[in-house]
């Protein structure tokens, strides 16, 4: 790269002056304006943008909540109630933040599921996918610590149970837990550090999201067919085609979000968290927020403490190696009739785990959780590696444009050199 002013294409003198010195406008134009994007996205491809919006909403509402919140065991509950009652629009900001966490997980779960169905994690997008799993882990940590802040019964006991997971680590477990707590139980030092980290982690997420998007713009997006674009006939500029398509999804997303916030703001929460934390009395049964239930079910499915913790973290860690577990050359499950059925079963199984995670760990619920845990892991460790070799995928279209426009579409204009290079049954 040559040293010197950037050769800016912009005419507006102010924009041009900045762009010559720091080509942010050129970059925006390249990455979000003309960025070549597969022309065949369906609405599942909205959820990445929605997750980004959701992150921004959480940060904005969180910053304003922090202006009124007091991270002290004696005042935390009351300061949240003050936000709900006395701060102007405090109830709105808090309910948006509270339900925003649920919306974030809904959006991200759909985003991940889209990746699983259309094989977005496969080469060359392995790192992109791994960065996504990092974001998911950071989200879970942030959500967990955020749930502690109102200092209700579920906050306190959730924090106690989850931090105690680390005591399963051999030899140093107990010391680690005391270190996490900053004391000998979950108490004021714990609340203080959770508040600090809950404020910090979203900005770490922003950083990883930046890397996630940067990696995406190197490989380009996957698409419902799972075949790479082969030329300009397969893509559209991101703007206006996908800015407007994302906007459609965004309005629908806001409608769902708004309905939750305005008409059933506590539906996804637990009533016990409106009881101030009491270290002397454990709630009848402790359940985490709904988005943790599948993993909580895996934790409780194992009779061994360390084993449960390992399996729970393993259920997410396995997503890191997913690109290498899935041996199929075909990305999209549109062309994998057998894998598609297994993914559907796995998805149902995920909801079973979610359901059983909310049930008391006794009787048949334990057995159901154990079977569902086995299915969860079997999909990744047995089904995907084997199917790649055993399954005969359907034939792939030779290009996106061909699939979109139909086999017999013809238009004038003469052949374009290079566009004809596509071979049927390309390696995808």
């Amino acid at each position: 790269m040559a040293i010197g002013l950037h050769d800016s294409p912009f005419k507006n003198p102010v924009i041009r002056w900045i762009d010559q010195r720091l080509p942010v406008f050129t970059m925006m134009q390249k990455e979000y304006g003309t960025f070549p994007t597969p022309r065949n996205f369906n609405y599942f491809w909205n959820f990445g943008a929605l997750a980004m919006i959701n992150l921004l909403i959480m940060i904005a509402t969180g910053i304003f909540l922090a202006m009124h919140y007091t991270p002290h065991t004696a005042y935390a509950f009351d300061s949240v109630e003050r936000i709900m009652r006395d701060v102007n629009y405090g109830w709105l900001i808090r309910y948006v933040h509270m339900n925003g966490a649920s919306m974030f997980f809904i959006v991200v779960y759909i985003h991940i599921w889209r990746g699983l169905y259309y094989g977005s994690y496969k080469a060359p997008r392995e790192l992109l996918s791994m960065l996504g799993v990092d974001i998911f882990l950071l989200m879970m940590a942030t959500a967990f610590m955020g749930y502690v802040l109102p200092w209700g019964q579920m906050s306190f006991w959730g924090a106690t149970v989850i931090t105690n997971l680390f005591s399963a680590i051999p030899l140093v477990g107990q010391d680690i837990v005391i270190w996490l707590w900053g004391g000998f139980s979950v108490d004021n030092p714990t609340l203080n550090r959770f508040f600090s980290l809950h404020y910090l982690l979203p900005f770490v997420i922003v950083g990883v999201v930046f890397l996630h998007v940067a990696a995406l713009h190197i490989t380009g997006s996957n698409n419902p067919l799972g075949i790479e674009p082969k030329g300009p006939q397969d893509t559209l500029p991101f703007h206006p085609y996908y800015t407007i398509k994302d906007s459609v999804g965004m309005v629908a997303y806001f409608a769902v979000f708004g309905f939750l916030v305005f008409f059933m703001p506590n539906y996804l929460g637990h009533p016990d968290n409106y009881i101030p934390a009491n270290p002397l009395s454990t709630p009848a049964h402790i359940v985490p927020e709904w988005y943790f239930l599948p993993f909580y079910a895996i934790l409780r499915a194992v009779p061994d403490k360390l084993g449960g913790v390992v399996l729970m973290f393993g259920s997410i860690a396995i997503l890191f190696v997913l690109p290498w577990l899935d041996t199929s050359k075909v990305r999209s499950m549109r062309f994998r009739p057998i894998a598609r059925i297994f993914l559907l079963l796995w998805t149902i199984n995920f909801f079973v785990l979610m359901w059983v995670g909310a049930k008391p760990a006794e009787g048949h619920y334990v057995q159901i959780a154990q079977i569902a845990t086995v299915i969860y892991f079997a999909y990744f460790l047995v089904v995907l590696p084997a199917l790649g070799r055993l399954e005969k995928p359907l034939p792939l279209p030779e290009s996106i444009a061909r699939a979109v426009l139909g086999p017999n579409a013809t238009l004038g204009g003469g052949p374009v050199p290079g566009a004809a290079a596509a071979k049927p049954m390309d390696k995808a």
Partner: protein
Amino acid sequence: MPTRKEGDSPCGGDIEVIAMAEMVTAQGASQGAGAPEVTKRDFLKLTTTAFAAVGVGAIVWPFIASMNPARDVLALASTELDLSPIAVGQSVTVMWRGKPVFVRHRTPEQIAAARAVPLSELKDPATDESRAPRPEWLVMIGVCTHLGCVPLGQKPTDPAGDYNGWFCPCHGSHYDTSGRIRRGPAPTNLEIPPYTFTSPTQIRIG
């Protein structure tokens, strides 16, 4: 979206040219070549953008409003005080909006002294009648108008300054029995807060 069936491989020459041609049309249209179709789209875009902008504005407002004083803060914006226990010559200090308010039950001598001063002698001319409509009660904000210290003079043992009122120890401002600045760096008299008598022995400040 049409999915492809097996055996759909293209025959011969009609290749992806098609899509290219389409692309060109699409981009041409988005750059606004003058077909009536385009005008309609631009109008629609403008309306949509304007509507979305209104929405964003409406989202911003609750955030701004949340930084204004909350309702519990506003509820404390007025302070009520029962004057009946305050004997003649006695002073009390109450908190109002985070600041001390001096309330003095003045003696006839103090009132007389305050009213005897000609306006020409004052740095910030104001009659005692304007500062204390009910002469026996003087209510003012106990914050020195110089740099914000709290003047002394509320307790009998405090130094009252050269004019038997209040004395600011920070930079030596002397206030008289009407709370007016007489000597020292302070530019103006001690401020009078808005207050009303809700009954002969009760005031509400703010």
